[in-house]
Protein backbone atom coordinates (compact mmCIF):
# COMPACT_ATOMS: atom_id res chain seq x y z
CA UNK A 1 0.00 0.00 0.00
CA UNK A 2 1.34 3.44 -0.92
CA UNK A 3 1.12 5.78 2.05
CA UNK A 4 0.48 9.43 1.36
CA UNK A 5 2.47 11.88 3.41
CA UNK A 6 2.08 15.65 3.24
CA UNK A 7 4.71 17.94 4.73
CA UNK A 8 3.68 21.53 5.53
CA UNK A 9 6.60 23.89 6.07
CA UNK A 10 6.41 27.46 7.39
CA UNK A 11 9.57 29.55 7.73
CA UNK A 12 10.53 32.73 5.85
CA UNK A 13 14.25 31.93 5.55
CA UNK A 14 15.28 29.25 3.03
CA UNK A 15 18.57 28.42 4.81
CA UNK A 16 17.01 28.14 8.30
CA UNK A 17 17.20 25.16 10.66
CA UNK A 18 13.49 24.58 9.97
CA UNK A 19 14.36 24.11 6.27
CA UNK A 20 17.05 21.59 7.31
CA UNK A 21 14.42 19.73 9.37
CA UNK A 22 12.11 19.66 6.34
CA UNK A 23 14.88 18.20 4.15
CA UNK A 24 15.59 15.53 6.79
CA UNK A 25 11.87 14.74 7.03
CA UNK A 26 11.42 14.43 3.25
CA UNK A 27 14.54 12.26 2.88
CA UNK A 28 13.37 9.99 5.69
CA UNK A 29 9.81 9.76 4.37
CA UNK A 30 10.81 8.98 0.80
CA UNK A 31 10.76 5.26 0.14
CA UNK A 32 9.22 2.78 -2.26
CA UNK A 33 5.97 2.86 -0.34
CA UNK A 34 5.78 6.57 0.52
CA UNK A 35 5.36 9.64 -1.66
CA UNK A 36 5.85 12.81 0.45
CA UNK A 37 4.25 15.97 -0.85
CA UNK A 38 5.56 19.39 0.24
CA UNK A 39 3.46 22.48 0.90
CA UNK A 40 5.89 25.36 1.57
CA UNK A 41 3.61 28.20 2.64
CA UNK A 42 6.18 30.98 2.17
CA UNK A 43 7.42 29.66 -1.20
CA UNK A 44 3.86 29.23 -2.48
CA UNK A 45 3.06 32.82 -1.47
CA UNK A 46 0.13 31.92 0.79
CA UNK A 47 -1.56 35.13 1.96
CA UNK A 48 -3.19 34.68 5.40
CA UNK A 49 -5.13 37.99 5.15
CA UNK A 50 -6.83 37.19 1.84
CA UNK A 51 -6.23 33.54 1.01
CA UNK A 52 -6.56 32.59 -2.65
CA UNK A 53 -9.68 30.32 -2.79
CA UNK A 54 -8.08 28.19 -5.55
CA UNK A 55 -5.02 27.56 -3.37
CA UNK A 56 -7.20 26.80 -0.33
CA UNK A 57 -9.24 24.26 -2.35
CA UNK A 58 -6.06 22.68 -3.70
CA UNK A 59 -4.63 22.31 -0.16
CA UNK A 60 -7.93 20.80 1.05
CA UNK A 61 -7.84 18.35 -1.85
CA UNK A 62 -4.27 17.33 -0.94
CA UNK A 63 -5.17 16.90 2.75
CA UNK A 64 -8.18 14.76 1.79
CA UNK A 65 -5.70 12.43 0.12
CA UNK A 66 -3.23 12.34 3.04
CA UNK A 67 -2.80 9.80 5.80
CA UNK A 68 0.28 11.26 7.53
CA UNK A 69 0.50 15.02 7.99
CA UNK A 70 3.87 16.44 9.03
CA UNK A 71 4.00 20.06 10.19
CA UNK A 72 7.41 21.75 10.29
CA UNK A 73 7.59 25.24 11.79
CA UNK A 74 9.32 27.36 14.45
CA UNK A 75 7.32 28.17 17.59
CA UNK A 76 7.10 31.94 18.13
CA UNK A 77 5.36 33.34 21.21
CA UNK A 78 4.34 29.77 22.19
CA UNK A 79 2.24 29.28 19.04
CA UNK A 80 2.47 28.71 15.29
CA UNK A 81 3.79 31.57 13.11
CA UNK A 82 1.03 33.87 11.81
CA UNK A 83 1.22 32.42 8.30
CA UNK A 84 0.58 28.88 9.54
CA UNK A 85 -2.15 30.14 11.87
CA UNK A 86 -3.81 31.81 8.86
CA UNK A 87 -3.50 28.58 6.89
CA UNK A 88 -5.20 26.65 9.71
CA UNK A 89 -7.96 29.27 9.91
CA UNK A 90 -8.68 29.18 6.18
CA UNK A 91 -8.03 25.55 5.21
CA UNK A 92 -9.20 23.76 8.38
CA UNK A 93 -12.15 26.00 9.27
CA UNK A 94 -14.95 27.02 6.93
CA UNK A 95 -17.61 28.51 9.15
CA UNK A 96 -19.74 27.51 12.09
CA UNK A 97 -22.24 25.58 9.96
CA UNK A 98 -19.75 23.48 7.93
CA UNK A 99 -17.20 21.55 9.95
CA UNK A 100 -14.17 20.94 7.75
CA UNK A 101 -12.82 17.44 8.30
CA UNK A 102 -9.95 15.38 6.91
CA UNK A 103 -10.88 11.88 8.03
CA UNK A 104 -8.12 10.22 5.97
CA UNK A 105 -5.41 11.71 8.23
CA UNK A 106 -4.44 9.02 10.76
CA UNK A 107 -1.22 10.55 12.03
CA UNK A 108 -0.01 14.10 12.66
CA UNK A 109 3.70 14.62 13.28
CA UNK A 110 4.87 18.03 14.51
CA UNK A 111 8.53 18.99 14.08
CA UNK A 112 8.95 22.33 15.77
CA UNK A 113 11.72 24.34 17.38
CA UNK A 114 11.59 26.50 20.50
CA UNK A 115 14.24 29.06 21.41
CA UNK A 116 13.32 28.81 25.10
CA UNK A 117 13.56 25.75 27.39
CA UNK A 118 10.72 23.33 28.02
CA UNK A 119 9.87 24.62 31.51
CA UNK A 120 9.34 28.13 30.14
CA UNK A 121 7.11 26.80 27.35
CA UNK A 122 5.08 24.89 29.94
CA UNK A 123 4.65 28.15 31.87
CA UNK A 124 3.51 29.87 28.68
CA UNK A 125 0.81 27.24 28.17
CA UNK A 126 2.08 25.73 24.88
CA UNK A 127 -0.88 27.01 22.93
CA UNK A 128 0.68 25.78 19.66
CA UNK A 129 0.63 22.23 20.97
CA UNK A 130 -3.02 22.61 21.95
CA UNK A 131 -3.92 23.85 18.47
CA UNK A 132 -2.64 20.53 17.11
CA UNK A 133 -3.75 18.10 19.81
CA UNK A 134 -7.16 19.63 20.51
CA UNK A 135 -8.23 21.37 17.30
CA UNK A 136 -6.55 19.78 14.25
CA UNK A 137 -6.71 16.28 15.67
CA UNK A 138 -10.49 16.55 16.26
CA UNK A 139 -10.93 17.10 12.52
CA UNK A 140 -8.90 14.04 11.48
CA UNK A 141 -9.58 10.29 11.72
CA UNK A 142 -11.20 9.11 14.94
CA UNK A 143 -8.04 7.41 16.25
CA UNK A 144 -5.60 9.92 14.80
CA UNK A 145 -2.27 9.95 16.66
CA UNK A 146 -0.17 13.05 17.33
CA UNK A 147 3.62 12.87 17.65
CA UNK A 148 5.35 15.91 19.09
CA UNK A 149 9.02 16.03 17.97
CA UNK A 150 10.07 19.36 19.43
CA UNK A 151 13.50 20.83 19.99
CA UNK A 152 13.46 22.96 23.15
CA UNK A 153 16.10 25.51 24.15
CA UNK A 154 17.51 25.76 20.64
CA UNK A 155 19.12 29.16 21.26
CA UNK A 156 21.72 27.69 23.61
CA UNK A 157 22.46 24.56 21.58
CA UNK A 158 25.61 23.56 19.74
CA UNK A 159 25.80 22.42 16.12
CA UNK A 160 26.28 18.82 17.33
CA UNK A 161 23.06 18.96 19.37
CA UNK A 162 21.17 20.21 16.31
CA UNK A 163 22.63 17.48 14.10
CA UNK A 164 21.62 14.88 16.69
CA UNK A 165 18.09 16.28 16.63
CA UNK A 166 17.97 15.97 12.83
CA UNK A 167 19.01 12.32 12.95
CA UNK A 168 16.51 11.63 15.75
CA UNK A 169 13.73 13.13 13.62
CA UNK A 170 14.84 11.14 10.56
CA UNK A 171 14.74 7.89 12.57
CA UNK A 172 11.28 8.60 13.95
CA UNK A 173 9.84 9.60 10.56
CA UNK A 174 11.28 6.45 8.94
CA UNK A 175 9.56 4.38 11.61
CA UNK A 176 6.19 6.12 11.13
CA UNK A 177 6.18 5.93 7.35
CA UNK A 178 7.50 2.35 7.18
CA UNK A 179 4.47 1.03 9.08
Amino acid at each position, binding site marked *: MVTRTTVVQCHPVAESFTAAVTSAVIDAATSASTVPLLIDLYAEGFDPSQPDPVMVDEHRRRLNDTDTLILVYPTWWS*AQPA*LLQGWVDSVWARDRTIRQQFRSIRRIVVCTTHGSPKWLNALEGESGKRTVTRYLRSRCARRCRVHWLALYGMDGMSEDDRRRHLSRIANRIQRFTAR
Partner: protein
Amino acid sequence: MVGKLRRVVVIADDRREAVATLTEQVCDLLRKRSDEVTRISLAAFSPAMTAEERRSYESDEPIRSEEVKESATAVKQADTMIFIHPTPAQGLTAPVKGWIDRVLVPGVAFVLDDKTGRVRPALGHIGTLGLISIDDRTRIQRWVEHHNAKRVIFRALRLVCGIRTRTRAITLTTGDLADQRAVARRLKVISRW
Protein backbone atom coordinates in the same frame (compact mmCIF):
# COMPACT_ATOMS: atom_id res chain seq x y z
CA MET B 1 -4.02 61.37 41.44
CA VAL B 2 -3.67 58.98 38.51
CA GLY B 3 -2.13 60.72 35.48
CA LYS B 4 -3.21 60.46 31.90
CA LEU B 5 -2.99 56.83 30.76
CA ARG B 6 -1.72 55.88 27.33
CA ARG B 7 -3.85 53.08 25.93
CA VAL B 8 -3.07 51.03 22.85
CA VAL B 9 -6.07 49.30 21.28
CA VAL B 10 -5.19 46.63 18.72
CA ILE B 11 -8.09 45.54 16.50
CA ALA B 12 -7.73 42.31 14.55
CA ASP B 13 -10.24 43.17 11.85
CA ASP B 14 -12.52 46.20 11.98
CA ARG B 15 -13.93 45.67 8.46
CA ARG B 16 -16.99 44.06 10.04
CA GLU B 17 -19.41 46.81 10.93
CA ALA B 18 -20.33 45.36 14.35
CA VAL B 19 -16.64 45.05 15.33
CA ALA B 20 -15.91 48.58 14.08
CA THR B 21 -18.82 49.93 16.18
CA LEU B 22 -17.62 48.08 19.28
CA THR B 23 -14.08 49.38 18.74
CA GLU B 24 -15.38 52.93 18.41
CA GLN B 25 -17.40 52.54 21.62
CA VAL B 26 -14.37 51.19 23.52
CA CYS B 27 -12.09 53.99 22.22
CA ASP B 28 -14.73 56.67 23.06
CA LEU B 29 -15.11 55.24 26.55
CA LEU B 30 -11.36 55.44 27.16
CA ARG B 31 -11.12 58.95 25.64
CA LYS B 32 -13.93 60.16 27.93
CA ARG B 33 -11.65 59.34 30.85
CA SER B 34 -9.20 61.74 29.13
CA ASP B 35 -6.85 58.87 28.36
CA GLU B 36 -4.68 59.01 25.27
CA VAL B 37 -5.83 56.27 22.91
CA THR B 38 -3.77 54.87 20.02
CA ARG B 39 -5.91 52.76 17.74
CA ILE B 40 -4.02 50.17 15.69
CA SER B 41 -6.14 48.53 13.02
CA LEU B 42 -4.70 45.37 11.51
CA ALA B 43 -7.07 45.24 8.52
CA ALA B 44 -4.24 46.23 6.16
CA PHE B 45 -1.36 44.80 8.26
CA SER B 46 0.69 42.05 6.65
CA PRO B 47 0.89 39.23 9.24
CA ALA B 48 3.71 37.18 7.72
CA MET B 49 7.18 37.92 9.05
CA THR B 50 9.51 38.56 6.11
CA ALA B 51 12.84 36.83 5.50
CA GLU B 52 14.64 40.16 6.08
CA GLU B 53 12.90 40.63 9.45
CA ARG B 54 13.73 37.08 10.50
CA ARG B 55 17.40 37.47 9.53
CA SER B 56 17.73 40.73 11.48
CA TYR B 57 15.62 39.52 14.46
CA GLU B 58 18.56 39.31 16.87
CA SER B 59 20.43 42.30 15.42
CA ASP B 60 20.35 45.89 16.75
CA GLU B 61 17.68 46.83 14.19
CA PRO B 62 15.03 44.10 14.08
CA ILE B 63 12.32 46.50 12.84
CA ARG B 64 12.46 46.87 9.06
CA SER B 65 9.19 48.53 8.04
CA GLU B 66 7.32 51.73 8.80
CA GLU B 67 4.01 50.08 9.83
CA VAL B 68 5.87 47.97 12.42
CA LYS B 69 7.87 50.97 13.64
CA GLU B 70 4.70 52.99 14.37
CA SER B 71 3.21 50.13 16.39
CA ALA B 72 6.48 49.54 18.26
CA THR B 73 6.69 53.23 19.25
CA ALA B 74 3.12 53.12 20.60
CA VAL B 75 3.80 49.89 22.56
CA LYS B 76 6.97 51.30 24.14
CA GLN B 77 4.96 54.20 25.61
CA ALA B 78 1.77 52.33 26.49
CA ASP B 79 0.28 51.84 29.95
CA THR B 80 -2.46 49.51 28.74
CA MET B 81 -2.71 47.14 25.78
CA ILE B 82 -6.16 45.99 24.73
CA PHE B 83 -6.75 43.46 21.95
CA ILE B 84 -10.14 43.32 20.20
CA HIS B 85 -10.15 39.94 18.62
CA PRO B 86 -12.80 38.02 16.64
CA THR B 87 -12.13 34.26 16.87
CA PRO B 88 -13.08 32.59 13.57
CA ALA B 89 -11.81 29.11 14.47
CA GLN B 90 -9.65 28.89 17.58
CA GLY B 91 -6.56 30.63 18.89
CA LEU B 92 -5.29 33.97 17.75
CA THR B 93 -6.15 35.10 14.25
CA ALA B 94 -3.28 35.57 11.79
CA PRO B 95 -3.31 39.42 11.92
CA VAL B 96 -2.93 39.54 15.73
CA LYS B 97 -0.38 36.73 15.83
CA GLY B 98 1.52 38.42 12.99
CA TRP B 99 1.44 41.73 14.85
CA ILE B 100 2.85 40.04 17.97
CA ASP B 101 5.52 38.21 15.92
CA ARG B 102 6.64 41.32 14.01
CA VAL B 103 6.18 44.16 16.54
CA LEU B 104 7.10 42.54 19.86
CA VAL B 105 10.71 41.91 18.91
CA PRO B 106 13.95 42.28 20.94
CA GLY B 107 14.26 45.89 22.06
CA VAL B 108 10.47 46.36 22.25
CA ALA B 109 9.00 43.50 24.31
CA PHE B 110 12.16 41.97 25.73
CA VAL B 111 15.92 42.29 25.78
CA LEU B 112 18.31 39.47 24.98
CA ASP B 113 21.10 39.42 27.54
CA ASP B 114 24.42 39.28 25.64
CA LYS B 115 26.25 37.45 28.43
CA THR B 116 23.72 34.81 29.47
CA GLY B 117 21.58 34.73 26.32
CA ARG B 118 18.49 34.93 28.53
CA VAL B 119 15.37 36.93 27.80
CA ARG B 120 14.70 39.92 30.06
CA PRO B 121 11.20 41.48 30.12
CA ALA B 122 10.88 45.00 28.68
CA LEU B 123 7.12 45.61 29.01
CA GLY B 124 7.20 46.39 32.72
CA HIS B 125 5.39 49.69 31.98
CA ILE B 126 2.23 47.85 30.90
CA GLY B 127 -0.25 48.02 33.79
CA THR B 128 -3.13 46.13 32.15
CA LEU B 129 -3.35 43.57 29.37
CA GLY B 130 -6.90 43.34 28.07
CA LEU B 131 -8.54 40.92 25.66
CA ILE B 132 -12.00 41.46 24.17
CA SER B 133 -12.85 38.28 22.24
CA ILE B 134 -15.76 37.90 19.87
CA ASP B 135 -16.17 34.16 20.03
CA ASP B 136 -19.20 32.20 18.80
CA ARG B 137 -17.99 28.83 20.06
CA THR B 138 -20.09 27.07 22.65
CA ARG B 139 -18.74 26.68 26.18
CA ILE B 140 -18.07 22.99 25.52
CA GLN B 141 -16.14 23.77 22.32
CA ARG B 142 -14.09 26.36 24.19
CA TRP B 143 -13.38 23.88 26.95
CA VAL B 144 -12.33 21.14 24.50
CA GLU B 145 -10.26 23.31 22.17
CA HIS B 146 -8.93 25.66 24.89
CA HIS B 147 -8.83 29.44 24.60
CA ASN B 148 -5.46 29.67 22.86
CA ALA B 149 -5.69 33.43 22.29
CA LYS B 150 -5.86 33.86 26.07
CA ARG B 151 -2.90 31.54 26.52
CA VAL B 152 -0.66 33.55 24.18
CA ILE B 153 -1.64 36.96 25.56
CA PHE B 154 -2.10 36.18 29.25
CA ARG B 155 0.73 33.70 29.62
CA ALA B 156 3.41 34.13 26.93
CA LEU B 157 3.01 37.91 26.59
CA ARG B 158 2.35 38.36 30.32
CA LEU B 159 5.80 36.88 31.07
CA VAL B 160 7.54 39.86 29.46
CA CYS B 161 5.40 42.36 31.40
CA GLY B 162 5.86 43.57 34.97
CA ILE B 163 5.10 41.62 38.12
CA ARG B 164 2.07 43.86 38.83
CA THR B 165 0.58 43.73 35.32
CA ARG B 166 -3.12 42.83 35.50
CA THR B 167 -4.90 40.68 32.93
CA ARG B 168 -8.53 41.33 32.03
CA ALA B 169 -10.72 39.45 29.56
CA ILE B 170 -14.23 39.75 28.17
CA THR B 171 -15.94 37.41 25.71
CA LEU B 172 -18.86 38.44 23.51
CA THR B 173 -20.74 36.56 20.84
CA THR B 174 -21.85 37.99 17.50
CA GLY B 175 -25.38 38.01 18.96
CA ASP B 176 -24.20 40.17 21.87
CA LEU B 177 -22.83 42.78 19.45
CA ALA B 178 -26.36 43.42 18.14
CA ASP B 179 -27.75 43.74 21.67
CA GLN B 180 -27.13 47.26 23.03
CA ARG B 181 -27.78 46.22 26.64
CA ALA B 182 -25.25 43.38 26.43
CA VAL B 183 -22.65 45.73 24.93
CA ALA B 184 -23.37 48.38 27.58
CA ARG B 185 -22.83 45.78 30.33
CA ARG B 186 -19.44 44.86 28.86
CA LEU B 187 -18.45 48.53 28.41
CA LYS B 188 -19.17 49.13 32.08
CA VAL B 189 -16.69 46.39 32.94
CA ILE B 190 -14.11 47.74 30.46
CA SER B 191 -14.40 51.21 32.03
CA ARG B 192 -12.83 49.75 35.18
CA TRP B 193 -9.74 48.43 33.33
